[in-house]
């Protein structure tokens, strides 16, 4: 019997799995779940430090299908960003991963989502984007492209919200786009997001094989495959693996993440610097104009503090403070009361 491959904390990839999926057969979400499992396994993250959060929708069910040893919280529709903000500040040692969909993030949860990024809350936030409401059987979502056709024939005539563009605009500090079917690109991007401190947003195109996979849809498996426009190939080099990557001066770009991990981007076409915000937005606009899906690490801001740091919170997680620290001495109350008597 072949020996199981173990990672640096002696866990096998199987140890990162969860309950059996209840998605439709062939759903892009299941492929993303597999990439998440791969990323956690490769990075050797302790599942017991992870918290999995989600909202409502097909995608929001998926945290049950990976990391069964981690705590999970499947909240209400569109409010995962708020739950994550609270959980994050309550215990900054936890490693939060959120899984949401395009309705949950870009429609009902849009406000909370934007403000979470504005605060740069530490989280790996994956949007499983299929342009359609699956659980309610096939209505257009806010990321449905203009001109895309619904299964029943209706044409969408309202422009889409581009999650990556939105994320860059609102202050997310790690913004990537990928495709559920491209594990080679997606898994290292998730690893990078996990190593990043701040709001890491991954807009992952994930075809809905049941309600949005027909001719005329711009989120069908076929259409997406034909229109992917990768900026670069992506390698993730964890900080504990002190190896030289296949790095070519001039054509490759290395991004050093927090704690010393690195992402190496092997450029495919033009010069692309993911720390250049204007260039990132221009590239997205250009791709959208051509009906293409720009993928890769689109934007990265190495300088901004994450929210808990911005608030200068004490090192001990708030949730672990003892009663002695939480309850002020009675004398101080007497002092304040004396001031009220004046």
């Amino acid at each position, binding site marked *: 019997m072949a020996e199981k491959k173990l990672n640096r904390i002696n866990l096998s990839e199987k140890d990162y799995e969860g309950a059996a999926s209840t998605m439709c057969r062939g759903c892009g979400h299941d492929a993303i779940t597999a990439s998440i499992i791969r990323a956690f396994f490769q990075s050797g993250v302790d599942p017991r430090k992870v918290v999995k959060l989600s909202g409502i929708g097909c995608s929001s069910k998926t945290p049950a299908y990976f990391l069964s040893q981690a705590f*999970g*919280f499947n909240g209400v529709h569109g409010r995962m960003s708020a739950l994550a903000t609270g959980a994050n500040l309550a215990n900054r040692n936890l490693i939060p991963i959120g899984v949401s969909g395009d309705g949950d993030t870009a429609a009902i949860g849009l406000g909370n989502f934007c403000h979470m990024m504005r605060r740069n809350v530490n989280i790996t936030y994956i949007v499983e984007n299929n342009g359609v409401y699956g659980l309610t059987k096939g209505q257009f979502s806010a990321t449905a492209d203009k001109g895309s056709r619904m299964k029943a024939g209706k044409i969408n005539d309202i422009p889409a919200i581009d999650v990556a563009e939105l994320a860059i605009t609102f202050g997310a500090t790690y913004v990537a786009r990928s495709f559920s079917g491209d594990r080679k690109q997606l898994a290292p991007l998730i690893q990078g997001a996990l190593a990043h401190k701040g709001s890491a947003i991954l807009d992952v195109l994930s075809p809905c094989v049941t309600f949005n996979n027909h001719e005329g849809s711009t989120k069908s498996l076929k259409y997406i495959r034909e229109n992917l426009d990768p900026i670069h190939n992506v390698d993730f080099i964890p900080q504990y693996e002190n190896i030289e990557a296949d790095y070519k001066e001039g054509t490759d770009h290395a991004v050093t993440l927090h704690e010393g991990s690195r992402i190496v981007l092997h450029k495919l076409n033009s010069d692309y610097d993911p720390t250049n915000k204007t260039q990132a937005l221009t590239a997205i606009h250009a791709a959208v104009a051509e009906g293409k899906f720009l993928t890769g690490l689109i934007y990265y801001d190495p300088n901004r503090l994450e929210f808990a740091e911005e608030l200068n919170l004490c090192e001990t997680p708030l949730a672990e403070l003892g009663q002695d620290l939480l309850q*002020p001495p009675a004398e101080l*109350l007497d002092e304040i009361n004396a001031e009220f008597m004046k």
Partner: protein
Amino acid sequence: METPTINDLNICIATENGSGSASANNILFKAIFKMGIPCSSKNMFPSNIQGLPTWYQIRASAEGYLGRKDVIDVMVMFNDVTAAKDIHRVRDGGIILYDDSTPLPPHLKREGVQYLGVPADKIVQKILPTSPLRGKQKNMLYVGALAYLFGIDMETIKAVLEDTFGKKPAVIESNLVCIDAGYRHMQENGLNQDIARFQAIPNGNKGKIITEGNTACALGTIYGGVSFIAWYPITPSSSLAESIEYYLPRLRKGNGKPTYAIVQAEDEIAAAGMIIGAGWAGTRSMTCTSGPGLSLMNESVGLAYFTEIPSVFLIVQRGGPSTGLPTRTQQADLQLMYCCSHGDTRHIILIPHDMKSCFDFARRSFDLAERFQTPVFVATDLDLGMNFWGKVLTAEQIEQWEKQGKKFRRYFDADGDGIPYRTIPGNRHPHASYFTRGSGHDADARYSEDEKDYKETLDRLRRKFETARKYVPKPIVEMNEGVKTGVICFGSSYEATREARNRLRAEGLKTNHLLLRALPLSEEVKKFLEAHEVVYLVEQNRDAQMAAIIKEDWPELGAKIVSVLIYDGLPVTAGEIVRQIFNGAQATPREVLRQVQVKG
């Protein structure tokens, strides 16, 4: 001629908001307080920053009644816009103090009251000819005039100014000059009155403090160990969050870095979500809001209820529905809190009735939220004993349990009280984690649509609520032998009800009293209803919301309740309670409607 009463006076000051009168009123009130006289103040202000009418009432009461009084002895008429109405609000024989820089127009003259003038405008123009603050300082003139008329000495006023503006001698001086000018004007022109005098009571207010509910609640939450606050600005609860923010750095020093996080959220929906996330991850977390904010938070409250996450919601009620009267008071969100969110829910509500209980209840609300793993509205003191973290299992405890053959199951009723055990994210035991979800789940927190699992969860949540009856603050009951009439009140109606009962007794109607302090209701309420032939229930809403809640628990006793309903947005007065009780009060909201229809 009247014989002057001693320390019994109700002054109403009519001004424009934003005109600097708040500062003048505050000085006047603090001076009376400093003399040791029992007193209270109420601010009836508009939802506006500048230029709209506002009324401030100061009530001194020798007998120590702190509720608002509807009979006004003195009207300070400093707002031309409302003057025509204000003159009729003073009782016969009362006093109107006005600015007589210009002659009083005929339509503001009224029989049966004494007019006293202080030329405030003229005087400030003379003594502060160049000050840009002249308009604001003119309010200090009525402070001086009232001080002379009713016997507040200038030394006391000076001491109050020093307490208030300690580090700003120039401000003390300019205020003092104006107050003194008002005082001397009355003195030098022989302007006097004989309805009332203030007389200092040595040590009269010793040990008492002036504070307002939001500050008391804020301090309570800090002593309750709050670590996470998310809120969205809304009148009248904003000052609560701001007070917490003000006092936390001083009270929770930690080792230099903040041991708490405060987030001003983008809306109330986010605020509620954040505190639930933080409560789930193990901090004592809270939000504060008012009616409209609570409406937005409904869905999240249901999530916290169904997933059993401790969280505290401090609700400062205002006049609704919708935007309603943002700066007025009401108790009309009671049922919204009690059954907050869709589906079958029932929530714990603590109802403070004075400053001390604001502090105590805010403090203990966190203990209750932890104990019952549920959202708690408002807060408590009581015989709870410390129960800081409730049924939280550590990794070591799970190990112990497993040695004894017991398993940690998130939603299993191990103790039969409806309260399950929980673990907190970060717990490293391999069997500690679970998946929290707002959808149907079984005792092990697994997704389930099984009807048996679902019903079991709902029944256990109800069991938990029944357990809570024994742990929430008990009512305070006053019973007298042979008395067959009862009065129940709660919250801010307490002071006015206390006064009303004394007035009823003077008129020959003896009553017993029950002060409700929390929901769910405890057995004491049932006993109280059983012991009386008729029970008047005072509440500040139209629909008799508390009566409905009592009738839900004990329908057979519902017929004994006669509702006293006050919902004009103003603080309750004893006079109104007495009036309604003697008029037979309204039995039900439907009764109110019928009366309106008959009249119409």
